[in-house]
């Protein structure tokens, strides 16, 4: 057990930091999708996109430790993996295709992901299939050598920017639950697809409801067997929950430092009443860092992560909500940056809902870690 970087890790951190300063920070503030995509393409050119992918699939074969360093440095430079347009391809679809894709599918779809040429979105959730993902209703009806889609998907992040969507569709209305779904790759640039952005609490529209009316998926774009989509999707969800969260830690630390700046602007006697809560919030943030270290170390040693990823999801989402709540209250008191903290407060409400709601994570923890009955 140790926290020291090896010389190789240290050199890699320096190399990445220099490269990011040289090639990335000049692009802009990364508020625009186009800027973030440009950053992805430059990262791809240097081999930093899919750095942790195995070499046989064109990746960098980086160890979990090196990938974690890259993740943290990207966050510092303003291009965290969590806001990268390529994240659905790199983190979710890529690892899924490596396990379940045919050689032809791997050959066709993996390289464009690594070059940030194909932007992907994820089509799992539906109006009636949120936490109960297996209740997918969007139909894929077999016609000739293609599936014809009827139905809709919801909460689809960056749907209006995406070239492709990987999705679960119901291909056999009569088969039992978990045996009636197929995992498909949908070309988003075709007729029969309508995208309706959903305006969020903040007034922005990062995700949409997507309606399919006759859009087609050639059978060559079904991953795994027809009817085996649930199994394929489990690999995707497993991939979703395995990343370390160092980039989040860096991002939230920066927000905490901003709260510190607001506190400094207050008179000492007003400031003091906030300090205990602020100290606790900062303490709790380090839990994200430590969990990331643990996940990375276990992954490096090839040990099972179990439900540790659920612990991590629950922790970062609730900790960040507490931090932002504090920031908002102090902003009002100090009359500084109220708009910013109000927006962050609204935004952070979603964090305990998406990527597995807190209630689902608690079910997983209580059943898989504690062994309580279902």
């Amino acid at each position, binding site marked *: *057990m*140790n*926290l*020291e*970087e*090896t010389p190789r*890790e240290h050199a890699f951190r320096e190399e990445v930091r220099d490269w990011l300063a040289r090639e990335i920070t000049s692009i802009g503030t990364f508020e625009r999708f186009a800027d973030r995509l440009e950053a992805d393409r430059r990262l791809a050119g240097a081999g930093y996109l899919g750095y942790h992918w195995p070499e046989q699939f064109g990746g960098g074969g980086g160890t979990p*430790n090196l990938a974690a360093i890259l993740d943290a440095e990207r966050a510092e430079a303003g291009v965290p993996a969590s806001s990268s347009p390529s994240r659905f391809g790199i983190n979710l679809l890529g690892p899924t295709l490596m396990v379940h894709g045919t050689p032809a599918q791997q050959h066709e779809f993996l390289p464009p992901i690594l070059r940030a040429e194909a932007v992907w979105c994820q089509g799992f959730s539906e109006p009636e299939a949120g936490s109960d993902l297996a209740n997918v209703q969007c139909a894929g009806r077999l016609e000739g050598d293609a599936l014809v889609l009827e139905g809709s998907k919801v909460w689809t992040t960056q749907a209006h920017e995406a070239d492709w969507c990987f999705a679960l569709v119901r291909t056999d209305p009569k088969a039992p639950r978990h045996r009636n779904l197929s995992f498909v790759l949908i070309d988003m640039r075709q007729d029969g697809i309508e995208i309706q952005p959903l305006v969020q609490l903040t007034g922005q529209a990062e995700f949409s409801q997507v309606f399919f009316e006759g859009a087609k998926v050639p059978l060559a774009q079904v991953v795994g067997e027809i009817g085996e989509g649930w199994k394929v999707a489990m690999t995707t969800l497993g991939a979703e929950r395995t990343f370390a969260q160092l980039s989040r830690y860096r991002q939230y630390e920066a927000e905490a430092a901003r709260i*510190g700046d607001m*506190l*400094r602007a207050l008179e*000492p006697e007003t*400031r*003091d009443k906030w*300090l*205990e*809560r*602020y*100290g*606790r919030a*900062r*303490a*709790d943030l*380090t*839990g994200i860092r*430590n*969990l990331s*270290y*643990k996940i*990375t*170390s*276990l992954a*490096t*040693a090839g*040990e099972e992560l179990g439900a*540790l990823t659920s*612990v991590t999801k*629950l*922790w970062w989402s609730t900790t960040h909500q507490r931090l932002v709540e504090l920031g908002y209250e102090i902003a009002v008191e100090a009359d500084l940056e109220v708009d910013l903290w109000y927006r962050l407060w609204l935004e952070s409400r979603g964090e305990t809902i998406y990527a597995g709601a807190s*209630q689902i*994570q*608690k*079910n997983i*923890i*209580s*059943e898989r*870690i*504690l*062994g*309580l*009955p*279902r």
Partner: protein
Amino acid sequence: MDFRFDKDERDIIDQVGLTLRRHLRPARLLDDASVDGAWRALAEDGWIHAGLAAEFGGAELPLAMVAAIGRESGRVVAGDAYTNNAVLLPALFAGAGPEALADFAPGFLLGDGRGLAPQGGDGEQSSWCFGAEPGFAAYEIDGGRLVRYPAGSWELRGPAGLGLAIGAVTLRADAEPDLTVDATPFDPGTLAAANVVHAAGLVGLGETALADTVEYVGQREQFGGPIGRFQAIKHGLAEVAVWLEVAWNAVLYAALQPSDVAVSIAHLQAVEACDAATRAMVQFFGGIAMTWEHHAHLYVKTAQLSRFRFGSTREHALRVVGELSTEAVVL
């Protein structure tokens, strides 16, 4: 970076846990003979001085391993004796020089002392003694001197009716020290290490409280099935499990990098986790946990009395915010 114990380290930790559990189970906590047995077994196997330098007879285990042993000690609800004997007393002996060590060391290395441990670095006598048992020597700091009182010359005076061997150590009127040496106050490093091992013990205590509660709600049937199937209970215990995981990681981080901030974070989170675990235990066991018919009360009391050692949560939170605080924090 490798933020996990490897197999060899885990084997050592498991062995300590087995030794402790062989002698000490919560139901026997009030049985002096069991406590003595566990403590002496720990000493005989060399775990008490595992963290000491080789020149003092120790195995020089790193602080993370000493913390892991402290966690095992917490898991059998052994109070804070491990922190006292493994970290604080050796530091005093080391400061007192080789002659003092020759006089003192054999006794405590054999488990002969698990007594009075000072709270801070100011040399004042402690008002609380953690895990002191009749039959052992008590040590105290008195005006820059370290003194030892033999068994029988002091008594433990706890808050009335607590039923737990935690309380104020009070010397009898005729008590005479049998050894006295000059001692140096604890240096900051020693206090940091003690705080880390103390926090580890709190995590261990919380883990046992959680494990007992999980076992109980899996067996206790109401409304036609085990109550552990209800989400109200599952989610409450899941939250406790998350706190304990986070707290244990904070302890390990502080053990590897014992800065003031890291140590304070470990303290804050261990207190929070242990508090959450023992409160949940009482709530989910229900009425029986409000009585002496069940051992839950021992866990709760140990948690509540231990949490104030080595500084309050407010002091630690202020240490985390650093220069923003105008309040001087002296732990």
